[in-house]
């Protein structure tokens, strides 16, 4: 137990090899990576690949059920649902990635400061976070978008604001437990200033749990953005977006035209599912004890 058996070249067992090992051991994570690749592909190349113009209406073909020509059927004004679903990927992904990136950066900076130095910045930050968290988050996002104006940028800001507390708290906790860890103290003895200790020694060690959070959060951010556009905020018709497409399709579900709502909904679900699986997979890689 006391001596680790000799491994050939420790350097080679770094990131990539470990990734391959984990993927082979866990087929579900492999599936998640595959789905993630598919989603990224349709986000980047989607508009170039789809068979129809997503905005092209055709009254003659309105409300056709799925067929060989129109895999996902057509909507009430004859647009191809499949093309619209694929094209929408880029917008939905953009909203969530931008929002999560914003909250990641802001939350990390705030959390680092509060977690490392404590004192009044910590108290102030906690008060603000408590206040944000005192709102049901989706409701707060509704209020923010309603106040700032009904645009895509504001959807991004609103989603970012409601996500910030998660990152700030996570980073604060991770930094705080490592603040007095031996290696941080030792780094100070080695002549590193406080900022260097924080940025070069403590923060990198807080990154793995952050990446898990990012992945789980991306799924949640997509859900939020789609939810907001479902109730008519942010994205305006005829822009293809999953939430708004489900909303449009909802009017036809009671008369049996299921494909208009079901396909964008399924696609949305798959995207969120992918990010959640990815998050769980990353969690396994980062911390096998927290498997759920």
């Amino acid at each position: 137990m006391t001596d680790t058996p000799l491994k050939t070249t420790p350097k080679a067992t770094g990131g990539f090899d470990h990734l391959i090992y984990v993927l082979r051991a866990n087929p579900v994570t492999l599936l998640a990576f595959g789905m993630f690749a598919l989603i990224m592909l349709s986000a980047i190349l989607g508009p170039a690949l789809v068979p129809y113009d997503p905005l092209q209406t055709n009254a003659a073909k309105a409300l056709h059920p799925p067929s060989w020509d129109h895999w996902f059927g057509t909507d009430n004004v004859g647009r191809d649902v499949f093309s619209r679903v694929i094209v929408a990927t880029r917008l939905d992904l953009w909203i969530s990635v931008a929002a999560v990136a914003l909250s990641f950066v802001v939350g990390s900076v705030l959390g680092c400061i509060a977690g490392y130095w404590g004192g009044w910045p910590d108290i102030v930050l906690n008060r603000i976070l408590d206040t944000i968290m005192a709102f049901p988050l989706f409701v707060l996002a509704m209020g923010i978008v309603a106040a700032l104006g009904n645009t895509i940028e504001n959807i991004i800001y609103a989603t970012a604001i409601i996500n910030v507390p998660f990152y700030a708290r996570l980073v604060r906790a991770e930094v705080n437990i490592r603040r007095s860890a031996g290696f941080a103290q030792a780094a100070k003895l080695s002549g590193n200033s406080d900022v260097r200790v924080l940025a070069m020694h403590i923060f990198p060690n807080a990154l793995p749990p952050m990446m898990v959070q990012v992945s789980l959060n991306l799924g949640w951010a997509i859900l939020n953005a789609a939810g907001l556009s479902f109730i008519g905020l942010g994205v305006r018709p005829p822009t293809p977006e999953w939430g708004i497409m489900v909303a449009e399709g909802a009017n036809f579900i009671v008369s049996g035209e299921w494909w208009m709502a079901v396909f964008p909904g399924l696609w949305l679900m798959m995207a969120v599912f992918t990010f959640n699986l990815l998050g769980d997979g990353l969690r396994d890689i980062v911390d096998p004890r927290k498997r759920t």
Partner: protein
Amino acid sequence: MLSVKDLAVSFQTRRGTVDAVRGISFDLAKGEILGIVGESGSGKSVTSYALMRILDAGGTIAAGEATYSGIDLRRAAERDMRDIRGREISMIFQNPRAALNPIRKVGHQIEDVLRRHARATRQDARAKAIAALRAVRINDAEARYDAYPFELSGGMCQRIVCAIALACDPRLLIADEPTTGLDITTQKAVMDLVRDLIRERGMSSILITHDLGLAAQYCDRIMVMKDGVIVEQGDPVQIFSAPQHPYSRKLVDATPRVGESIRSLLPPEDRKAELPHHVHDRPLVEVRNLTKTYRGSSGPVHAVKGISFSIKQGQSVGLVGESGCGKSTTSEILVRLMDATSGEILFDGHDIAGIPAQGFARNPRRAEIQMVFQDATDSLNPRHTARQTIADPLHRLGGLRGAKLATRVEELATLVGLPLPLLDRFPHQLSGGQKARVGIARAVALEPKFLILDEPTAALDVSIQAVVLNLLVDLRAKLGMTYLFVSHDLHVVRLLCDHVIVMKAGEIVEQGPAQDVMSNPQHDYTKTLLAAAPKPPARRQVA
């Protein structure tokens, strides 16, 4: 009474089957106290869990027999085992606070056991639980009945765990490292209590410990385990005076005790002559009226209450005390990671107490005062290789770059006995002893004048402790460093230090030359500390 034959225990893990215990046999007579001694990973705890059939998920008894009073423990039905546990065989554990249900009154936890084994009815459960508390000599048992574990001290929690284990008068008590994590005086109190209770009730017992000295003091017979097998068994005096197996000889050697030198901790073939270190008359560090007061939630906490001492250049001073005595606070202030509330620290004649800890990283004296941390694992950045860790101070404070830096790192690795191929490993790929070497290499990289050692061997197995202590002695002579050695263990301090300071509750109660303090302690507290340390029997005559 208990007979174990060829017992083997294996665990199914993600990496395949691990054989934790590989065929051990022993017998335990009625009224006997058997000690199982081994270092971490030797399978000693797993053996006891297997006997109780409370192995963690994935663990199974792969082969062998275990018979208790005619009952086959391996094949008994789970229902029967539940009747045996607590009533026939009981167990006490390490880390007593965690071993109790945190949100249930301790009295109720005792009642649960009494009622489970039908030793109490609803009406008399309370009275019997209080009686059980009295049996483990808890004062004011009625009041303690309503306490939650978090309201009690560690030693008190261990008594409660004993009360639960002994409530139903079992005939065999298994004690799994019952004193790990407890202060040395508490350790003695708990062990004496357990021994007395066992003797009074005529029970048999198995004491599992990593401390050969402790086992020797309390057990009738000792088994030494290594890698899942018993390498030697016999009575304590015999094991200490004439260990047969090389491993038990190594363990016996590595156990510190009265009248031995630090080199004798090592196996005879590794005992080189000790290099002398020179103590100058000039003081290097002078501490005057140092205080530290924290703001606690219930008023100020005086961690250090105005202490003064001085350390001569080249001298090694031991700072000894139990947890909470202020020794760690003192060392953090001296190494300038924490600011003192008041007082002076003269280093080379200059007061450094006034320089804020926050900016000390840029102070030219930073390189002269360094520290080796308590837990080697915790003190190494998990994302840095050993090479990066050792290079950090050389690069930051020494200004070394490129090839010079690489050469110096390798010199240091050689100096502390770390094989060069290990330099590119991450901490999780290193053993405990290797991590300790990396931490020491980093601390001595800039050849500091003053090195603070904060319990550097507390987390290490005793045989590795012996090696690390000897390395520290060699480095002191080679580099001419001055040591402040912080420890709870007087015997370890004596081996390494010229001068000893004993602290209690933020104050120095006694200080003086190490030999004097050890052989003729003046203060009652020092006497208590010395008396509490386990006293292994004398060693065989060394050739």
